[in-house]
């Protein structure tokens, strides 16, 4: 089983940046009954990660935006990735959000009203409690249902073969990360597969053809390394 980024385990703690956590945020988190830990840096994020990974993250971008966005990127790159990320921004920072669309799932204007923050946090964590959304990956117009093996692009079902589906699912589960051909071969095809990395290239080409001109670019070639599902926008 490939670890699923969106595994709904309500008991998994929330990562909070910066460390120490802003006092209002800490209070709201405590009152709402969330388990959480403050993390100072990407290193701390990895070091303090609980078994089973972080359940979600709240990142306050108001004090040190650069460090905060770096933290968001680090959350993405974790294994498994954390994509339930709520960012706190000032009114002046709202414009920055557009270009960082892929780094957060929800945002809240700071200073945040405790009740709004509480509601957003509940929503962020509770999304996991929907009708098993753990098995549904949304990504830039793509939707993959890991339970039913169905993929759709802008609501249009994609007719994929098994290997094409598996390849897309793997890339989507590691969205934003460069995955090497070798990794894809071993994780998607299995080591016993004969045919080498050319097989991966050929399947990527087929997937792009099926995604159509408009979405073919979603699968990006990273020269002499591998492929990555690019993050364009979060389609919710």
């Amino acid at each position, binding site marked *: 089983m490939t670890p699923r980024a969106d595994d709904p385990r309500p008991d998994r703690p929330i990562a909070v940046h910066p460390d120490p956590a802003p006092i209002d945020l800490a209070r709201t988190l405590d009152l709402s009954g969330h388990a959480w830990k403050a993390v100072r840096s990407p290193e701390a994020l990895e070091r303090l990660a609980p078994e089973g990974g972080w359940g979600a993250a709240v990142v306050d971008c108001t004090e040190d935006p650069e460090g905060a966005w770096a933290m968001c990127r680090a959350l993405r790159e974790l294994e498994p990735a954390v994509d339930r990320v709520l960012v706190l921004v000032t009114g002046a920072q709202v414009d920055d959000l557009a270009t960082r669309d892929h780094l957060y799932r929800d945002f809240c204007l700071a200073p945040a009203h405790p009740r709004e923050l509480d509601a957003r946090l509940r929503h962020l964590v509770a999304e996991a409690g929907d009708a098993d959304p753990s098995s549904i990956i949304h990504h830039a117009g793509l939707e993959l249902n890991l339970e039913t093996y169905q993929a759709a692009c802008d609501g249009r079902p994609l*007719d*994929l073969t*098994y290997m094409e589906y598996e390849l897309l699912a793997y890339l989507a589960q590691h969205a934003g990360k460069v995955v090497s051909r070798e990794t894809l071969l071993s994780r998607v095809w*299995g080591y016993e597969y004969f045919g080498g990395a050319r097989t991966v290239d050929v399947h990527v080409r087929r997937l792009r*053809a099926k995604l159509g001109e408009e979405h073919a670019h979603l699968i990006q070639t990273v020269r002499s390394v591998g492929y990555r599902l690019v993050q364009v926008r979060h389609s919710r």
Partner: protein
Amino acid sequence: MRGDRREYVLHTIEERGIRLVRLWFTDVLGNLKSFAISPAEMENALQDGMTFDGSSIDGFSRVQESDVLALPDADTFEVLPWVDPKGAEARVFCDIANLDGTPFEGDPRRVLRRNLAAAREMGYGCFVAPDVEYFYFAPPTPGSRPVPLDEGGFFDLTSTDIASSLRKETIRTLESMGIPVEYSFHEDAPSQHEIDLRHTDALTMADGVMTFRMVVKEIAALHGVHATFMPKPLEGVQGSGMHLHLSLFRGEDNAFHDPSDPYQLSTTAKSFMAGLLRHAAEITAVTNQTVNSYKRLVPGFEAPVHVSWARNNRSGLIRVPVPKRDNPLATRIEYRSPDPACNPYLAFAVILAAGLRGVAEGYELPAEADANLFEMPDETLAKLGIDQLPPSLSDALRAMERSELVAEALGEHIFEWFLRNKRAEWRGYKTHVSQYEIDHTLRSL
């Protein structure tokens, strides 16, 4: 691996509301055959295969028993794009087995699999990219000559519009079925078109060629047009070929590439080419399997006649395209005689067998023939040791019949059946009195 092919297929049938699953396979002559099963039967079919009577399929019939098993290859399961979504249909390619589960020797897909396994034994994976040519005509009526769309009056739209919109729709459908297209264009002859497919492994590509031919014909038919892969439908203009771009890979590496060689060709590539050249005559009946095929293989129409190779000489049998940029992966050879009316499984199988024989036995590649061979007198060609391809189906069958290589590549069952069937075709043709003879001799003799 996370999932399971069968589960994937069964889920997709359920989720997409598939009404029928079409089991596809190919007869010995390369015709697509199919029977449909209900979704409920699919689980069983994936598990144990579906029994059917093979005696009605060309080349499947045998004396002892006629029942065979169709075993769906779950990797090829796909929802068909052109059917009404309310009653969606899917297709899956099948391998054919005997009732005891052993591979059925009359199944072309098995023949290709067996030859690919032999290549794998030697450490090679085989990649193919075909350039397929075909014609669009007005729907044929019995006894009439083909009418190209370009000859005005057939459509209100100008013919270029209808043909290029047909081609565009075809390409869209192919791409949605996972058959990526490299280039496409209107060819030299009236109403002739070419679609070049991107390379993939040989088995997938053989399946792809079957799908391709069906899609081209289906989409044309939807618009009241007849698409044909007949090798030479019109006299005096180019015929339709299916040039095959071939390469062997050893793991990550293109086994045909050697940067230190002036041609960038490895020893493997050279002996593969030598194998193809030495056995070309023997495999031609398979790559060019109709009487009509040999009317394409004549001088003057960019089709090969001579058994030779060159880098940029389109009169040769093998062309070595010069890669646009220094890209080791792009090194390949282009085998130019096959036509799109062949059985792609069998054609790929004999081509691979001929090339690999050259590799295994270290054949020496003859010198490049870069002059225009059509202009050379026969004595010069003979001095250079340049043979010609068989000039007729009959000659090709004679060369094939003596070939231990082709017998081995195809297996005895298909080898025997093919020769028998094609000799009958030749006999039928030989007794036909053509318009040519009437025109040229009725009055003068």
